[in-house]
């Protein structure tokens, strides 16, 4: 534990240094929620429209903000003032909010600790390095500003209980997580199938009793969270705020997922058909906004509704669900949950690029299991970290984000190659006597390097080189050649390129799940 604290403390130092950096509008969003929960009675939380950044997280998160606002009020009452606090950017509010994020990361710390405490020390250290020093968490939480470390910590705690076989507690924490941020609900089908089969499937009477207990726990959590709003008769308003389907298929910056290709295909088809002489109308609605029923933003391809994306996600999930139904094993749950989040990311409605955290962070626990997993993780985490780059568009943070990614890649390369050449060498060393150890090892380690060492495949390597090309193009060459014209092209390029990578990762994960041995 003290070693884990050391890693955590190092990253905390860095986070402290990053306090004055750029923060996005999410900073003001959370400040507004502090003010709103502090100065209004509970019955008005989901109705307030003083600021455009209305409360759209589930109630537990609102309670969490209410809790933080107690301290905020003690430090500077203006932070929690609904009117005077609007767009407040004094040092007090910046330090306060940044430090709450840093402190709430201790939840992540506990989750990592719980999940790794039974592993052997080597793997444990790698996981700490990958998760506690994750550049994506730094970029999203400590630069861009959000509380993902805290929320992912709850997910990890839940997973750790499931892996230990304590299904009820795991389910409880997942329910808690859902009441903090509903976007985590994508993994609910996996949880449901797994808990039903692994926890409740044991004889009719006992199983039914367990199902009741589990149901009671989940209902109790939801009752605590939503109860007050049900009491005030506002549950519809709460849900309307939480699920703003009017926001459109894609976020302002297209998250690198499946829909990017769908849009591009539509644009391409329209372009070609117009060339061929067909009269194709240019759609007026945009992908990123507008109400659903209005008009289709697509020229040729059928319109996508939230229901369609929902069906797509379920369809993509189904192989995993079948697997979980047939062979519910605690050892696989982390992988299934990450797969579920990958599906949600690829096919979901109005996905943020930040959502890639939901699968990259838990995947680190899978990565150390075998060489192939490590290779996949190495590659995936670079791609998804790179896809976060557009979040920090100001020049000041440019060196920081590049160095973060570079450091992460170097650390992964060192750590994985240490782990996977290490095993071979140790075996070789055990076989031979100490005297000629040095001599023989030279040969052995050479062979081990070639066969079993941590080497990235050719396709992956060229993809990563391509990533570099995309970055150079969008940062330097594009402004140089086109100036201010076509400002959306670099972002689109990044979306498409990272989308390719994440699609590949999805297929890889799917294949792995289907092929995994049935124990």
């Amino acid at each position, binding site marked *: 534990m*003290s*070693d884990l604290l*050391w*890693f955590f*403390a*190092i990253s*905390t*130092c*860095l986070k*402290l*240094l*990053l*306090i*004055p*950096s750029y923060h996005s509008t999410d900073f003001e969003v959370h400040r507004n929620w502090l003010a709103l929960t502090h100065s209004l009675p509970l019955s008005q939380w989901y109705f307030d429209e003083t600021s455009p950044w209305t409360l759209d997280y589930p109630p537990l998160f609102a309670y969490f903000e209410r809790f933080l606002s107690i301290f905020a009020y003690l430090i500077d009452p203006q932070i929690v003032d609904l009117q005077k606090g609007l767009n407040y950017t004094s040092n007090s509010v910046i330090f306060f909010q940044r430090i709450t994020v840093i402190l709430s990361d201790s939840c992540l710390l506990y989750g990592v600790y719980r999940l790794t405490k039974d592993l*052997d*020390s*080597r793997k444990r*250290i*790698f996981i700490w*390095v990958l998760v506690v020093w994750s550049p994506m968490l730094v970029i999203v939480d400590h630069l861009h500003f959000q509380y993902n470390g805290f929320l992912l910590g709850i997910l990890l705690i839940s997973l750790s209980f499931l892996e230990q076989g304590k299904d009820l507690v795991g389910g409880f924490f997942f329910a808690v997580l859902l009441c903090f941020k509903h976007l985590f609900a994508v993994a609910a089908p996996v949880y449901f199938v797994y808990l039903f089969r692994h926890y409740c499937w044991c004889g009719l009477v006992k199983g039914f009793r367990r199902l009741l207990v589990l149901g009671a726990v989940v209902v109790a959590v939801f009752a605590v969270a939503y109860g007050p709003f049900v009491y005030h008769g506002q549950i519809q308003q709460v849900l309307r705020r939480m699920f703003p389907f009017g926001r459109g298929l894609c976020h302002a910056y297209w998250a690198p997922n499946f829909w990017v290709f769908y849009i591009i295909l539509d644009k391409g088809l329209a372009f070609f058909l117009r060339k061929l002489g067909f009269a194709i109308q240019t759609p007026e609605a945009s992908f990123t906004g507008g109400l659903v029923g209005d008009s289709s933003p697509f020229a040729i391809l059928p319109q996508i509704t939230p229901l369609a994306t929902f069906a797509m996600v379920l369809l993509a999930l189904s192989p995993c669900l079948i697997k979980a139904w047939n062979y519910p094993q605690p050892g696989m749950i982390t992988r299934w949950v990450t797969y579920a989040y990958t599906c949600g990311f690829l096919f979901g409605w109005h996905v943020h690029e930040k959502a890639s955290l939901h699968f990259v962070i838990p995947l680190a626990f899978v990565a150390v299991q075998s060489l192939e997993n490590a290779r996949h993780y190495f590659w995936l985490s670079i791609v998804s970290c790179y896809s976060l780059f557009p979040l920090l568009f100001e*020049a*000041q943070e440019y*060196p*920081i984000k590049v*160095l*973060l990614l*570079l*450091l992460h890649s*170097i*650390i992964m390369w*060192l*750590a994985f*190659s*240490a*782990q996977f*050449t*290490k095993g071979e*060498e*140790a075996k070789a*060393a055990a076989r031979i006597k100490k005297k000629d*150890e*040095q001599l023989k*090892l*030279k040969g052995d*380690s*050479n062979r081990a390097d070639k066969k079993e060492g941590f080497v990235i495949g050719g396709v992956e390597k060229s993809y990563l080189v391509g990533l570099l090309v995309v970055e150079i193009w969008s940062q330097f060459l594009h402004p140089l050649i086109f100036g201010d014209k076509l400002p959306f092209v670099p972002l689109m390029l990044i979306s498409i390129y990272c989308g390719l990578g994440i699609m590949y990762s999805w297929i890889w994960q799917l294949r792995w799940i289907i092929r995994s041995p049935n124990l």
Partner: protein
Amino acid sequence: MERTKGRKVVKDKEVGDGDLCWWLVHKGIAASFLCIAVFALLVRAAISLHPYSGAGNPPMYGDFEAQRHWMEITLNLPVKEWYRNSTTNDISYWGLDYPPLTAYQSYLHGLFLRFFHPESVSLFTSRGHESYLGKLLMRWTVLSSDALVFFPAVFYFVLAYHLGRPNGHKTHIAWHIAIILLSPCLMLIDHGHFQYNCISLGLTVGAVAAVLSNKELVACFLFSLALNHKQMTAYFAPAFFSHLLGKSLRRQNPVLEVLKLGLVVLGTFALVWWPYLHSMEAFSRVLSRLAPFERGIYEDYVANFWCSTSVLVKWKRIFTIQSLKLLSLGATVSTCLPSMVQQIWAPSNQGFLYGLLNSAFSFYMFSFQVHEKSILLPLLPASLLALEEPFLLKWITLYALFSVFPLLCRDKLILPYIAVSALFVLIYYVPSGRQDRKETHSFNSFFTTCLVLCSVVLHIIYVTMHPPHRYPFLFDAMIMLLCFSQFMLLAFYTNAKQWMLMKRSVLLDKEKKLH
């Protein structure tokens, strides 16, 4: 590569499973250096987000404005005008007072600034220029100089230093790299306060590495460059001089060796000073800019001998500047002398590093016009010696940090101060990284804990409380006295240590002869 891997397996049992950083070192020195260097750069980039000295503080601003002004001057005026007071170059407003290499460096960086943001370096109109992009570009010039000068020099040093110590533990090498690269004072002053110490210190580290790998001519060249970047580097000159002299005297042809070294030094100087060598007047004008004696023997509250004892003896009142000059020169030379004699008598790599520390200490303590930031100079050899003297390094780093605390407070750099100090302590105490660390406890641990507590309390007092009206600088003086006492103790210790080294080597020689 293979060799190191083999050794790694042998050492595997010793390292044990608890070793946190074994993954960092298994690929060899270069890979771990790369990783640590990227982390160190990241920390520097993060520090550079914070305010610089004199931000938003007209009319004189601070060191940031000085550096920017030099870029403006060197960029827009011909070389001969750089050091001369004229209608276009007001010397009283941050006139150039560093040697020509700094001026050339300002010129290069000025070109970079002009390319992206011409307004920030235009003549006259850019005075006190402050903008988002201007700050950013200036910060990037320091970051890039650090990455291009200091980092390669440290890499060279680590290679040279550890080549001579084949039994060194791999994790110790990584620890050593981290300690040198993440030196908190250097990072705060260069990337927070804003200066280019990384260049002159980097050149010095390069010269030290060249000495360690027996390339004396390269060492002379690099050290002369360092001297020409910042005259403060002369703090190390006695050590270089005595060590190289001592070494040359042991060669076959001492006179020729000394002559060669002298020629390299003179040649480098001539090269750097070329534009000012055409007339005696131009030359002496530059020279007079470099030695601002009129500023008095000390400034502010620097923890050196003159300033600390001025609590009791009012040096400035008793003596004229002329006699103070002589006094400080005499004190500096006489305190350097033991360490110089030792190196001439018995030059050794180890002794050379101690010599650097000792001569830097005596300059910091006794020379004329010392600034708080000059503590960086004794700090550098101390961090190079970190593996030998971990306790010394910890102590000097903590008190050096403390001695620049009032300065950083003024720059509003308290947050990075805390974060970077914590980072240093964390790296110093990396769990299970260095089990066989032998802390040479020259004080007992009770005493050290008390001192650390004292200084923490003093930090808090300094930030939170107002000093009494009669003594507005009471807390500054207290910090100064505390730091001065610690530096004095350390200086005594390192001088003694340098001489003890010789005794040990003599003993070893005798044993060899006996066998």
